[in-house]
């Protein structure tokens, strides 16, 4: 299965290498042009560099039914998703969740139910608000492993990826360059800022880039909010709930709003786009993941709005359930693309040097 996909990608990549018309769209083409022969690792690296902007599909004079049957965005998406599955550890989870929206929803329900049960079981003790429902200690006991273990898993996968693509020693300048490329989504710019061809066929638009940026920055703000809360808690003995003018809220509220806007936008665009230019088998899993991420933001905001009301315990359980599901799925869902993308951009920065 994987070998076939790689072979098909190689066939297409070699046609592109003879053509090169798309050289100005993204980093994939200069990368493929640096080589004459492309081994499996090269193809996997190209696949993880591709941002699925689809510029090269609509510009291609060889798309099906032409006998060259070029659909580079789709075949690279397939190689990409399959590479995440192959390197995932434990592997069977990846196959389950990456391709299956229902499984993602199922995990979410289980996580929420678990939190609801725990909330009822724990005798409401000391704290106010949150900790009246679920003690801080319980939360940490649950979330620390749920956060650390997936990261360990991602680290294992990335090592395997790096070995497969033949990555060299890491240089900080390359990592910085990759980080800046991914923050700006340079590879969704169409090469000249006109954007990509996602939701309106051959017309260019920056919607996907903007929504993805909202999602990314929203996510990072939410993450920073949680981190700042942890610091306040342990470093300064300041416990939740925090007021509006506190760091966790100043970061978290705009973060949540951006996350919700970004994820709803991306989900909507996904319904407009032609699914056959992506990994068709992963559509459901990807969609479920975007919605889940959006839900973490939405339930977080709802939780904030419901402070000191009777809805709080239930909302807290739902919010924490979504967060738990999100973390558990980190290595086994679309989320993993963030890590691979960074790695691929780093490797590319080093190859360009």
């Amino acid at each position, binding site marked *: 299965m994987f070998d076939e996909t790689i072979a098909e990608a190689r066939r297409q990549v070699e046609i592109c*290498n003879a053509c090169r*018309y798309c050289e100005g769209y993204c980093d994939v083409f200069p990368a493929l042009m640096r080589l004459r022969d492309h081994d499996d690792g090269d193809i996997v690296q190209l696949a993880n560099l591709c941002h699925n902007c689809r510029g090269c599909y609509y*510009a291609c004079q*060889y*798309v099906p039914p032409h006998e*060259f049957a070029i659909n580079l965005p789709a075949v690279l998406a397939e190689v990409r998703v399959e590479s995440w599955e192959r390197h995932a550890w434990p592997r069977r989870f990846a196959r389950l969740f990456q391709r299956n929206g229902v499984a993602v929803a199922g995990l979410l329900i289980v996580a929420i139910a678990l939190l609801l049960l725990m909330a009822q079981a724990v005798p409401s003790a000391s704290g106010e608000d949150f900790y009246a429902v679920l003690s801080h200690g319980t939360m940490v006991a649950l979330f620390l492993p749920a956060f650390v273990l997936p990261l360990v898993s991602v680290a294992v996968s990335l090592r395997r990826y790096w070995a497969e693509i033949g990555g060299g020693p890491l240089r900080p300048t390359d990592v910085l360059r990759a980080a800046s490329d991914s923050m700006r989504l340079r590879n969704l710019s169409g090469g000249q800022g006109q954007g990509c061809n996602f939701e309106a066929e051959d017309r260019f638009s920056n919607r996907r880039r903007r929504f993805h940026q909202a999602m990314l920055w929203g996510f990072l703000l939410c993450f920073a909010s949680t981190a700042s809360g942890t610091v306040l808690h342990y470093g300064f003995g300041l416990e939740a709930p925090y007021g509006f003018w506190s760091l966790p809220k100043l970061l978290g509220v705009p973060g949540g709003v951006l996350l919700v806007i970004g994820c709803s936008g991306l989900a909507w665009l996904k319904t407009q786009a032609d699914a056959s230019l992506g990994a068709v088998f992963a559509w459901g899993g990807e969609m479920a993941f975007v919605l889940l991420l959006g839900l973490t933001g939405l339930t977080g905001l709802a939780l904030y709005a419901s402070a000191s009301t009777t809805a709080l315990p239930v909302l807290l359980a739902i919010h924490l359930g979504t967060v738990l599901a999100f973390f558990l799925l980190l290595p086994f869902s679309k989320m993993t693309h963030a890590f691979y993308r960074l790695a691929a951009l780093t490797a590319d920065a080093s190859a360009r040097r």
Partner: protein
Amino acid sequence: MTEDWDVIVIGGGNAALCAAIEAAESGARVLILESAPKVYRGGNSRHTRNFRCMHDGPLSVLTDSYGEDEYFDDLLRVTKGETDETLARLVIRSSEDCLPWMEAHGVRFQPSLSGTLSLGRTNAFFLGGGKALVNAYYATAEDLGIAVRYDTEVTHVTIEGDRFTGVRVRGPDGVADIAGRAAVIAAGGFQGDIDWLADAWGPAARNFLIRGTPYNRGVVLRDMLDQGAISVGDPTQCHAVAIDGRASKFDGGIVTRLDCVPFSVVVNKDGQRFYDEGEDVWPKRYAIWGRLVAAQPGQVAYAIIDSRSLDLFMPSVFPPENADTLEGLATKFGLPPEAVRDTIDRFNAACRDGPFHPTDLDGLTTQGIAPAKTNWARPITEPPFYGYSLRTGVTFTYLGLKVDKSARVSGPKGRYDNIWAAGETMAGSILGQGYLAGFGMTIGTVFGRIAGQEAAAHVR
């Protein structure tokens, strides 16, 4: 229902789109009739990558400057004087305004593609290639309210006296007549009609491959000529290059080109050499090799290199055949092994020591064989040996409609009242033979725009 359009544009490539956009911007109601389905819209234009543009000082992606006289001299050189100077200079001078016009209508440019740096001063490359250009124009056309019908072939142009009155089409809903007040013909050449090609060139043409769209079958051209329209250009000639012999009959496009000839020994079906492979750098020679191969038995030839030369040229779409011995390679191609061995042995013996420079004319020439190889003559000795088959790939035909500088087509009694032509359909009015890279799109853009403006002015 009878339809009545201001301007009917026949064809859906670059020239047609430029005409349609200009006409619509002048207020005309425009209909585009494209014989190809939507995925194949854009004719040969969708296979292109650049256009040649005069410029006084750096312009967009173009470096330095490229003046009218230099441009014209370049054209004269390739056409060996078979050029209409007035029209050619009109195209050249107008090309400078075309670039900003193209950008304003959605076309994006990029610096010359890697491997084509020599064109960075003279040719502006389209970001994403010709299909991206065609897409941009279709989007602009849609925004301007231009109607487009795909899968709709014009089979007859109705002319009463000197006046065009409408077209007959064969489309998804069958045959229909559509009335119009002016026509722009931009339907390309006739190379898609192999029978016509064979009538004109001879039976050898049946073995030619067509590099571009199968939809340019010359149906409108023939219909116009049958009605007495004046033709230009040599009806027996076409622009042809040597391409990979494994390419499909139609639409193989740019990726079927082969750049290996200068580093090869090229033999025919009988294992014999027939021309100096190293006469000049490949961009200056690929066009004559189309004819050279066409003159060989079976219209096929074989380029043979050794392992040292494999990385000296751009990769092509199909991997080369290979074998550890020359006889083995010959057998794979169905060539007589002894003859190939003998030809290469004699070639190798004629090679001399000296510096080999793949990117320049290095003067490394054979001695004592005919034909000589006058550059890059390095012996073929290091296995594995690689080979490509070569066939003649037709780019376009020269026969076309005669136009004046306002793009108006001439009929038996002088100019028609309301018929204009643009692009490949009339390019024979400008060049009688030869071809200058990027000039086809320039002709189409300049004359397309003129035709669109004139047609719109006529109906106003």
